[in-house]
């Protein structure tokens, strides 16, 4: 796992200290910078984007940065590799990020201050329940199927979708969480 300090990245992209992620041009600039860092990581590495030093994040900037960062990674034919977890978010950040993720049908894993994680964005109730079961340690398909009341085949399909959307990682024949418990 590697951490990207967005406040430092923002200062680097702007050439001066800045506290706020606002406007599309700023979102595009920070996305390009972060994409370069993600592209340099080993395959399968989880990148934690740390928003701790960021004040205001507006929706336009969130769309240009977060949504467009994830679109090439979460689609049915991903063109970019890498896993992303968000950290250091306050309610204002979450408001903007959830709005843009839902607009694009995207979802992300967010790490809360206590170290726990949750999904934000466009996920179904079933996807969320399955994901939460994996987060508490359930691994076997049969175990997951029993926990959420679905057929094994359906659980398999849903897990495939969660892995494809980079909300879980494949490990051998099973799946493991990102974020706090990721290896």
């Amino acid at each position, binding site marked *: 796992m590697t951490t990207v300090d967005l406040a430092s990245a923002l200062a680097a992209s702007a050439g001066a200290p800045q506290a*706020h992620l*606002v406007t599309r041009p*700023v979102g595009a600039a920070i996305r390009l910078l972060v994409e370069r860092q993600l592209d340099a990581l080993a395959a399968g590495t989880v990148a934690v984007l740390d928003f701790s030093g960021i*004040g205001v*994040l*507006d929706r336009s900037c969130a*769309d240009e940065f977060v949504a467009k960062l994830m679109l090439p990674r979460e689609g049915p034919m991903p063109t970019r590799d890498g896993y992303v977890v968000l950290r250091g978010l306050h309610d204002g950040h979450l*408001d903007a990020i959830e709005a843009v993720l839902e607009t694009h049908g995207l979802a992300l894993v967010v790490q809360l201050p206590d170290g726990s994680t949750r999904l934000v964005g466009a996920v179904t109730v079933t996807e969320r329940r399955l994901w939460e079961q994996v987060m508490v340690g359930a691994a076997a398909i049969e175990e997951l199927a029993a926990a959420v009341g679905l057929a094994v085949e359906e659980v398999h399909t849903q897990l495939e979708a969660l892995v494809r959307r980079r909300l879980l990682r494949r490990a051998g024949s099973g799946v493991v969480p990102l974020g706090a418990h990721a290896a």
Partner: protein
Amino acid sequence: MTAVITVPASLDEPQFEQVIDQLAAVPADAKLLVDARHCRFATPYGLTGLLCLAQSRLERPDFAPPEDDDVRSYWARSQFFSHAEGLYTIRGSVPRRQGGNSDVLLEVTPVRDSGDVQTVVARIQEQAAHILTRTLDLEPRATMLFSMTLSEAASNVIEHAGGGGWVMVQRYDWSKRRVGREVVQITVADAGMGFRRSLEGSRARAVADRWDDAVALETGVVQGVSRFGDPGRGQGFKGIRGYASKVDGKLTVRSGTARIAPIIPPWDDDRALRSGLAPFPGAQMNLVIPRRLATP
């Protein structure tokens, strides 16, 4: 011959229509005098509107500033004169900027690029957040949503106006008005291309049965259609409308010959859409946010 535009004694959003009505009768290239001598009160909408007016003229207009010393002093503190000096030939002298008015949460501030939006957001967060918290009874973290809204509105100027614009934020005690409490007024105004021209190349325009300023405003403000085709556009006004609704605020946007009020709170009875107004360039957004009511 010089045409005279008389600025009403009180200059807020409704009264600025009187200014625009007068302007409509004057050819675009005519010499203009904007006479504000008898103006006694002007809001962010009025002040930024006067700057947009000057920007819309082919020939630099003249400006007669208010005669009342207190009014001149307020306009100076609001930074109006410092920007007006670059757009108008001001008749007579005007006071230099003075500090010390905490009701002006953000002076008239130009918005031309992302750096200006950063400046606007930083000023609100660093200098006015505590006043907003007190005036509007906002949770401290809710000032973030206020700043987000301001940022989205200012970003729209950069993205869509085709030129710069102006932002101003002011606090008022409207306890004697119908709303009956303190409010904060945000105006973001520009003299750019306006909604109709901005959306001219959009798919919404291509499939529209009719196309005018009113339809363009509904398309842009309510439906969230952008002139840029990539998915995810239109987030700005969606967020602004959502915030206005959440805080019992009132949102209006004027562009060209139309004005839309997509969020009308119970304390106001404005019309949702007006068309056939006198033409004025660009777009002028006005957002009034009242103090949060105590929950019973």
